[in-house]
């Protein structure tokens, strides 16, 4: 509950630091209040606003601090992205903060390389090791430094970028398995803007989703969840219709009014089938004017042809098209499963075409392209560093892996939660390549698979203990800059990565020191925002700078009539005779790409559709299962041409036949006792295939086989498999 007195200044953080310092001195029983710390009232809580970093959405949060401890995270009501709401992952951030396995001291390798055996060393020694490495690389071959992180935003990214540039190495790779490369390319092709749009879900009357995952994972689940609520309930006479095309009834699809199963990778054909009907029957003004599109080849993509490719009935495609056309404003969205096929850009471009034909670009209930960096015009070229394009970085990563293998790097700086050793296909042999780098330094809070390969681990504070800033990639129109602050005093001996880089730069001297001239990262932030003419203290209290400007500048879409996307079929590796099922993998709503697996609250959160906890599973439809001789709960070996694992079967009653689906996130071999050994890692089944246009990872590009195997134990599901069909019994 929001304290009405508002958020209070974090200046008290200094006082906290003075009082508490290290974890040992945190008073456990009697709290000495002869001289109470600033802003500290026993029994009363203080709420500090900050930014959530449990996923890339960048929601604003407020955290309740009671006697120096973080107790509860809530959404920041002032933040336009999430408007006071927060998802399960955001709530679980407290467990990351107080995790028993969090790194509290720098670690030095104490065993064979890559073994993950460490011993604790003091910061002085750790920094000395770091500086020795950096200095020698800088002196001899500055380009032999690699920085491999997750995608960073805000001034953190600016600091890292400046560091590397001043150091003299161009090799900065930001890896995000769920980067939006295909979306960015498709948007550029269709709308002429290489950016992620704003989708006005709340104002639309007809939502077409093509494997959309916007309510569960995706770019901004809380934002879209909230918008979905407004779409259904905020308008007195309009509820909207939501139609979902996709391989499985996902959590997002479960909210749809109509779910039409389509084969994986065929979303583009479904969209073209709809476009065909729209243009043929001139359902919207833009469709009526799309004669050139028709002649360019759209007339071939009849609903019947689409039905053949997708498996959805032609009559349904026609009916949906007519409804979409006559219920404007309509909005079409595509999700990760459509994007991460070898034909991802085609799928997404076809979906984008629907928005053009609906004529909703720049209009309410449609899509628009705000300039989210408008507030940073004064930063010049560096503004882009605050909100880089949400790309996967796959081509750069593969290039880096190749170079690593050739011995081109002498030192690697790793950071971030995207854990390449866990999320990359095994055929890339990332681990092997990385270990060819003589010095590997990680900035991390936990020992995940990638961090365990390091020689030196520098412990970082969690996001709840750090200063920072952020611009969310979606959910706002440029009127929100989120400011992060420590909600508790850091109670482990940690230093944030920007602070270490700044200190390192100072010691390196020369251009590096000049590029990072501040005393600390906090100073960097304060100086950056001081120039913007805002009340920084007030902004920190609010959790960010929210200009509230209704009409932030929008970029105009491309002029001219739409072009027909070049059709392409999705390619799947593996001989269909040997691997009869297509593999569909999706980030799980609790664990996302795998980073949430070490948090018990998230492991114990039942999956919305499978209702399983603490383990993963493989989903098949009833007909497919019967053909393979499988029943609900059986153990199977899932094999692709690239790897295999064991999992229990969950009989999914609403999944396209011939598809096997698995959630991503489990299957860790490291990352602590809550994460390790809870099933196989589905990332290890995947090929290194790419989306043809962008070279982004194509996760939906392999086939698998399922063979019944005896397994110990059982999948724990919280909804009884028989009882789940008896909804009427509770009415």
């Amino acid at each position: 509950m929001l304290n009405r007195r508002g958020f209070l200044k974090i200046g008290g953080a200094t006082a906290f630091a003075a009082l508490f310092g290290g974890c040992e001195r945190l008073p456990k029983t009697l709290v000495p209040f002869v001289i109470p710390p600033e802003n500290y009232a026993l029994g009363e809580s203080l709420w500090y606003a900050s930014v959530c970093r449990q996923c890339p959405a960048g929601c604003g949060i407020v955290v309740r601090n009671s006697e120096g401890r973080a107790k509860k995270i809530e959404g920041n009501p002032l933040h336009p992205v999430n408007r006071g709401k927060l998802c399960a992952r955001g709530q679980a951030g407290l467990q990351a903060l107080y995790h028993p396995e969090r790194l509290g001291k720098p670690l030095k390798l104490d065993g064979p390389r890559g073994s993950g055996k460490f011993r604790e060393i003091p910061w002085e020694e750790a920094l000395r090791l770091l500086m020795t490495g950096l200095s020698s690389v800088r002196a001899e071959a500055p380009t032999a430094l690699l920085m491999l992180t997750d995608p960073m935003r805000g001034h953190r990214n600016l600091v890292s970028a400046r560091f590397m540039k001043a150091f003299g190495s161009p090799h900065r790779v930001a890896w995000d398995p769920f980067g939006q490369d295909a979306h960015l390319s498709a948007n550029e092709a269709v709308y002429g803007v290489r950016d992620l749009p704003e989708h006005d879900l709340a104002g639309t009357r007809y939502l077409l989703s093509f494997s959309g995952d916007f309510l569960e994972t995706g770019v901004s689940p809380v934002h879209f969840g909230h918008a979905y609520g407004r779409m259904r309930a905020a308008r007195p006479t309009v509820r909207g219709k939501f139609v979902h095309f996709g391989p499985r009834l996902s959590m997002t699809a479960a909210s749809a009014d109509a779910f039409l199963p389509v084969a994986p990778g065929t979303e583009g054909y479904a969209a073209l089938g709809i476009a065909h009907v729209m243009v043929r029957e001139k359902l919207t003004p833009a469709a009526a004017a799309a004669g050139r599109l028709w002649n360019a080849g759209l007339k071939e993509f009849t609903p019947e042809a689409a039905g053949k490719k997708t498996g959805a009935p032609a009559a349904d495609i026609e009916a949906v098209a007519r409804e979409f056309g006559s219920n404007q404003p309509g909005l079409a969205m595509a999700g990760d499963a459509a994007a991460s096929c070898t034909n991802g850009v085609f799928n997404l471009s076809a979906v984008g075409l629907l928005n053009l034909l609906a004529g909703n670009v720049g209009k309410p209930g449609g899509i628009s392209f705000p300039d989210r960096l408008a507030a940073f015009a004064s930063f010049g070229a560096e503004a882009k560093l605050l909100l880089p394009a949400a790309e996967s970085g796959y081509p750069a990563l593969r290039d880096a892996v190749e170079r690593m293998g050739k011995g081109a790097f002498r030192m690697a700086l790793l950071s971030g939660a995207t854990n390449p050793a866990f999320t990359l296909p095994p055929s890339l042999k990332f681990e092997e390549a990385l270990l060819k780098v003589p010095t590997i330094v990680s900035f991390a809070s936990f020992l995940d698979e990638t961090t365990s390969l390091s020689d030196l681990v520098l412990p970082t504070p969690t996001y709840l203990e750090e200063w920072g800033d952020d611009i969310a990639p979606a959910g706002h129109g440029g009127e929100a800059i989120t400011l992060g602050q420590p909600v508790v005093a850091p109670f482990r001996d940690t230093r944030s990565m920007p602070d270490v880089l700044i200190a390192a730069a100072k010691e390196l001297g020369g251009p590096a020191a000049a590029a990072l001239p501040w005393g600390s990262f906090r100073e960097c932030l304060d100086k950056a925002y001081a120039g913007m003419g805002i009340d920084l203290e007030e902004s920190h209290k609010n959790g960010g700078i929210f200009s509230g400007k209704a009409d932030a500048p929008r970029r105009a879409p491309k002029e001219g009539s739409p072009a027909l996307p070049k059709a392409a079929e999705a390619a799947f590796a593996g001989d269909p005779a040997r691997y009869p099922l297509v593999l569909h993998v999706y980030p799980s709503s609790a664990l996302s790409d795998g980073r949430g697996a070490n948090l018990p609250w998230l492991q114990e959160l039942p999956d919305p559709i499978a209702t399983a906890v603490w383990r993963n599973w493989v989903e098949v439809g009833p007909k497919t299962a019967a053909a393979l001789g499988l029943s609900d709960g059986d153990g199977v070996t899932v094999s692709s041409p690239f790897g295999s694992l064991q999992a229990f079967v969950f009989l999914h009653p609403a999944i396209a036949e011939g598809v096997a689906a698995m959630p991503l996130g489990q299957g860790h071999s490291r990352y602590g006792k809550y994460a390790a050994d809870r099933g196989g890692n589905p990332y290890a089944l995947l090929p290194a295939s790419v989306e043809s246009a962008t070279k982004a990872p194509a996760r939906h590009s392999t086939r698998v086989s399922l063979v019944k195997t005896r397994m110990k134990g059982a999948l724990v599901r919280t909804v009884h498999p028989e009882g789940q069909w008896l909804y009427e019994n509770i009415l």
Partner: protein
Amino acid sequence: MKGENHLSRLDESKLYDELSRSNLPATKRWYAGTGALLLVVLASVAAFVYMMFTGLGVTGLNRPVMWGVMIILFVFWVGLSHSGTLISAILRITRATWRAPVLRGAEAMTALALMVGGLYPLMHLGRNWRFYYILPYPSARQLWPNFRSPLLWDAVAITTYLTGSLLFLYFGMIPDLAIARDRAAGWRKKLYTFLAAGFRGTHEEWRRYHVASTLFAVIIIPVAVSVHSIVSWDFAMAMVPMWHSTIFAPYFVAGAIYSGIAGVISVMVILRKAFRLEKVLTPDHFDNLGKLLLTFTLVWGYFYFSDYLTAWYSRFPEDWEVIRSYSGHYLPLFSLLVACNFLIPFPMLCLKRVRQSIPAMFAVSLVVNVGMFTERVLIVVPSLARRNDPSIWGSYFPTWVEISFIVGSIAMFALIYVIFSKLFPVVAISDVKEQLFHTTDRTIGGANLSTVVSGEGKEEGRET
């Protein structure tokens, strides 16, 4: 010989020795057996202490099945306790002469089974050490317990029944304790003297004894009926499907008596063998007990069928899910129930040949009690496992802790019974004697005199 008093084979002078064979000084074998039983009991006590200090998680209980073996044992043993009182009371009132040798053993069974059964409501509490919250004592919080709760009625009823049956047992034993006092020595004499309360066998004392026994017998019947009705209302008052049934009270009482009679038969067979009471407990006794058991096979079967039929016919969705599970997941248990409670006992008990065969009766009585235990399992578990909300359906399987309670309860009952039979006469000697010399009060002139008639007054005299 027909029409002859069955006890006429007994030599009156040796009567006491015959009937009190169980009170002979303990032998090594007795100590070994009792020691073994004590060990088993202590093991299950240890399991309980472990459970109390660790938490109920050591059992197989879960959500939705929050009651399991401990409640099953509670209902089972309280049911078994209906043996003595009812046999004793009913037989006393109807003046069935064959009751005499059976009385004491049955009454003891009642009190001791209740002692065992009454432990389980205390053991199954999550916070046993706070059990006294359920008692109406002047607490600092000024809180009464909740009298609307069937569990509180349970507490009252069990306490009342236990007190009543202990008094009933004790009171009925006073003449025998007096006899024992007269023949004992040493510490036993002190014990019996204290317990016999100065009974001298005067006419007045006997008269009062008879009046009081009859009164007790009459009063204990409604107590017994109400106890198991109240136990049944633990279930019937709940909103759980197949528990919320109006027939539960008579059904449980019938089941309890059924189980109790079978228990009496089992115990009597053992006593007969152990203490060589063949002359006292004759096949005729078992024949009559068998007839009683047959009656209750039919009564129990009738109530069970009625309960099942109405639920099955009306197909209320919640009840239907539980019934469906009887032919699904719980089919083995359900089959066992029907076989052991009806299909086996009914035809067998119809045959006089079976009823008069002691080994056969022993077998049938054990089968019935296996069936009755299964019946308790089938009452408690499927209804909870398949409760109203289908999403949360679950299952239940007891762990070693609960199995040790089952074994421990049997051992505890046996242990207390063995000690009881060692200390006290396990056959009602004075009642047996009474049958030898049946007296009636006649008015001769202005005086009330007891006159002696042999046996039932039908034959002329006794063979010498």
